[in-house]
């Protein structure tokens, strides 16, 4: 059934009347849900979350990027280990000495699902569409520093930025997708949102979207990566309840799931017919945004005391059973920007916490409201909140937990109404995205922290312009030193990507550090 079809009132009434008999309409509404191709494998995966769009320039649900990234590709991608590598580009870009011009050479063997050959013109078109304010692309602000995109030749494209801003390369992997030139004019917005058949270069061609059920794809026979994908049909099922995802896996209804229940993960992956894996992501940060403009977080020693009073290992191991990597700084242990000494400088130390509290404006302790969202996203933070409440009570700090539905939580957060808010957020695997969002002026989460950090801003700007990794490491180390000194917020850890799969049907799979697992690579 077309997803843009609007039945008449007559059809609606007939449907209701027919449904009163209970069964009459089912043949008419029969779907491809259980149809199997004549040959070849169908890979079925189950992920949580509710997709609202497949349009890559408007997609923000991290889990459902697994769907859009099956259809669309970018110039660059992250490999499973979190290293950037070329995708539609033939090689990593050459960058001008002033770090504002990026030139990409493109692959010559790529075709869109509609048969059109991919070229620089499509890249230019896609980015210009994204950047045009009239198109109201949700992801436009992320790429706002791109001033111009030029076609040098059919296989070479150039980006000119308004200022040095290296992170934009990483943001492509999550916040963008290349579509054919002219496709936006040739198709309605609903096509990009709900039924993007023929519009990408990726391993899967969109087939069908059944709301609250699944999205299906068929194999792209002309995919430029020869031999991939190994499946003939891909079905991504939407299953929000974690125990039901496991039930589907155990009963063989799905082949692979994401976000398994942490408590059962070790047991399940040891079962004879299942396998599993997990690894810390580079961008899934779990932190407490402490509002520096509201007591008691208006005192730096109090904030430091909180950081030192939280035993992150207990949370990681007892609450999340190892599916969280503890981190007291915005850097996971596996990241190139991780600095062990800064991490240790902010880590659990009860004596230090008590000492800092004694030196703060609140030597006798204090209380604060910790807002948390009710619904899990990547991780359920409620249990961790209870543990933190207990840990902070040891230094005389009383935590009042305020649970609310995510929309309510987030609306209050962005307005700066919370004393402290704790939640999980996901970014591409690079060091600056969350820092920009929370700790720099006029960004989405600025008011959740209200941090005034000119030194940090200056270091960030240096980092944007630095593409030598060793030099960038030093810059981010200096930045973390500032964060240790100022402790504008409290980091708890980095979430793991975790997957379980059936051995009988999934022979090759590597857990992706980006959490959004790539369906292309499942064999």
């Amino acid at each position, binding site marked *: 059934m077309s997803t843009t079809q609007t039945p008449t*009132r007559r059809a609606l009434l007939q449907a209701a009347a027919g449904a009163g008999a209970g069964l009459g309409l*089912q*043949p008419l509404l029969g779907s491809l849900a259980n149809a199997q191709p004549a040959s070849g494998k169908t890979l079925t995966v189950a992920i949580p979350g509710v997709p609202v769009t497949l349009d890559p320039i408007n997609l923000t649900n991290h889990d459902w990027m697994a769907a859009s990234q099956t259809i669309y590709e970018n110039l660059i991608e992250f490999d499973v280990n979190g290293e950037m590598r070329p995708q539609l580009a033939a090689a990593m870009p050459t960058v001008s000495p002033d770090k504002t011009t990026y030139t990409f050479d493109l692959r010559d063997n790529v075709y869109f699902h509609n048969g059109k050959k991919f070229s620089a013109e499509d890249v230019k078109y896609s980015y210009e569409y994204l950047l045009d304010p009239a198109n109201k692309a949700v992801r436009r602000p992320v790429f706002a520093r791109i001033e111009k995109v030029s076609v040098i030749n059919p296989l070479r494209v150039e980006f000119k930025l308004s200022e040095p801003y290296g992170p934009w390369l990483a943001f492509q992997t999550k916040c963008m997708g290349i579509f054919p030139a002219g496709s936006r004019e040739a198709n309605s917005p609903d096509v990009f949102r709900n039924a993007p058949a023929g519009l990408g270069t990726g391993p899967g061609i969109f087939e069908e979207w059944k709301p609250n059920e699944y999205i299906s794809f068929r194999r792209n026979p002309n995919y430029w990566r020869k031999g991939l994908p190994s499946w003939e049909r891909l079905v991504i099922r939407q299953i929000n309840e974690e125990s*039901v995802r496991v039930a589907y896996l155990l009963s063989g209804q799905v082949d692979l799931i994401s976000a398994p229940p942490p408590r059962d993960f070790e047991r399940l992956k040891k079962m004879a017919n299942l396998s599993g894996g997990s690894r810390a992501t580079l961008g899934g940060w779990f932190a407490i945004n402490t509002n520096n403009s509201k007591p008691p977080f208006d005192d730096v020693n109090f904030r430091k005391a909180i950081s030192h009073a939280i035993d992150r290992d207990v949370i990681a191991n007892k609450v999340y059973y190892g599916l969280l990597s503890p981190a007291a700084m915005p850097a996971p242990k596996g990241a190139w920007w991780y600095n062990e000494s800064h991490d240790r400088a902010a880590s659990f130390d009860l004596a230090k916490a008590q000492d800092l509290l004694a030196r703060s404006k609140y030597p006798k302790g204090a209380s604060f409201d910790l807002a948390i969202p009710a619904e899990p996203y990547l991780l359920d933070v409620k249990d961790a909140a209870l543990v933190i409440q207990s840990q902070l009570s040891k230094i005389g700090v009383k935590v009042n937990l305020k649970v609310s539905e995510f929309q309510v939580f987030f609306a209050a957060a962005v307005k700066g109404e919370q004393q402290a808010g704790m939640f999980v957020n996901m970014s591409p695997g690079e060091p600056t995205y969350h820092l920009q969002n929370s700790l720099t002026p006029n960004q989405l989460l600025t008011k959740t922290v209200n941090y005034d950090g000119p030194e940090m801003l200056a270091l960030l700007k240096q980092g944007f312009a630095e593409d030598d990794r060793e030099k960038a490491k030093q810059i981010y180390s200096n930045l973390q030193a500032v964060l240790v000194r100022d402790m504008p917020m409290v980091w708890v850890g980095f979430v793991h990507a975790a997957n379980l799969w059936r051995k009988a049907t999934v022979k090759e799979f590597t857990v992706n550090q980006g959490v959004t697992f790539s369906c292309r690579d499942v064999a």
Partner: protein
Amino acid sequence: MLRMLLNRLAFSILALLFVGLLLFVLTRGVPGSPARVALGLEATDTQIAQFEKDHGLDRPVVEQYIRWLGQLVLHGDFGRSFVTGRSMNALLTETLPITLELVLFAFAFAVAVALPIGVLSAVYEGTWIDHAARIFAVIGVSVPGFWLGLMLIRFPAVEFGWFPPGGFVPLSDGLVAHLQSIALPAFALGVYYIAILSRMTRSGLVETLGSEYVRTARALGLPRGRVLWYALKNALVPVVSVGAMSFGYMFGWALIVEYLFNIPGMSNALLTAVGQRDYFTMQAVVYVFTIIFIVSNLAADLLNRQLNPKLASAQP
């Protein structure tokens, strides 16, 4: 009869108008904007304001309501979701049959089990049959539906493999597979109402079996079965009324069952819509539920008139 139907129609229209307005006010009073869902967490205040302007969400609630109502009455159009862009009519066409089938199965199952239990319990009042039925009823109303659903998934589905753990298989894919996919959810939904209806049946039947006209019928030598049938007909009047209300309530309970068993029905769509602040979906689904509630109560009244002709003459 005609007068009764016209009265009910007028009342129903008033009820729908009231429900619609209440929905509008309540949904728009909840914190959080659908803009944030549609545009993403990183939407700026400017983007959100523009979105609300584009979709008329910055207009007064009454104006929005009148516009929506006009579209519904004049064009039969429930509108389009401004979160997903989908037509509400299409959504209802896809999801209503699924939820309706689930509820009908659950209701039929509940009635088919509850009536015999209630009758046996009444006929054998005070015996072990009556006590067993009472215990079953207490368990039935006490067991949390969510837990029951998880147990059904855990054992009959995963452990024994008799049923799928979730999902909905349409009839076009095979009758057996279709029935298997609906069996566990229908059971989970119907158990609570078996308890309610069986107790109602028992209470009503015990009372009528003790009444004078039944004793007279027995004394006159009428067969036991016929006496029981006469008594049951009179005892069923309150049961039918409660049954009709239960049928309506089942659509609400179906929300939990559909979520748990991953059934793409209307109740599941409502749950998603609440989280997304998808006002049009919420309004469309709740409106349909209200209509079903009204129709089922009307059907119950008509059936009761057949069961007890005194009601037909007593009511306008």
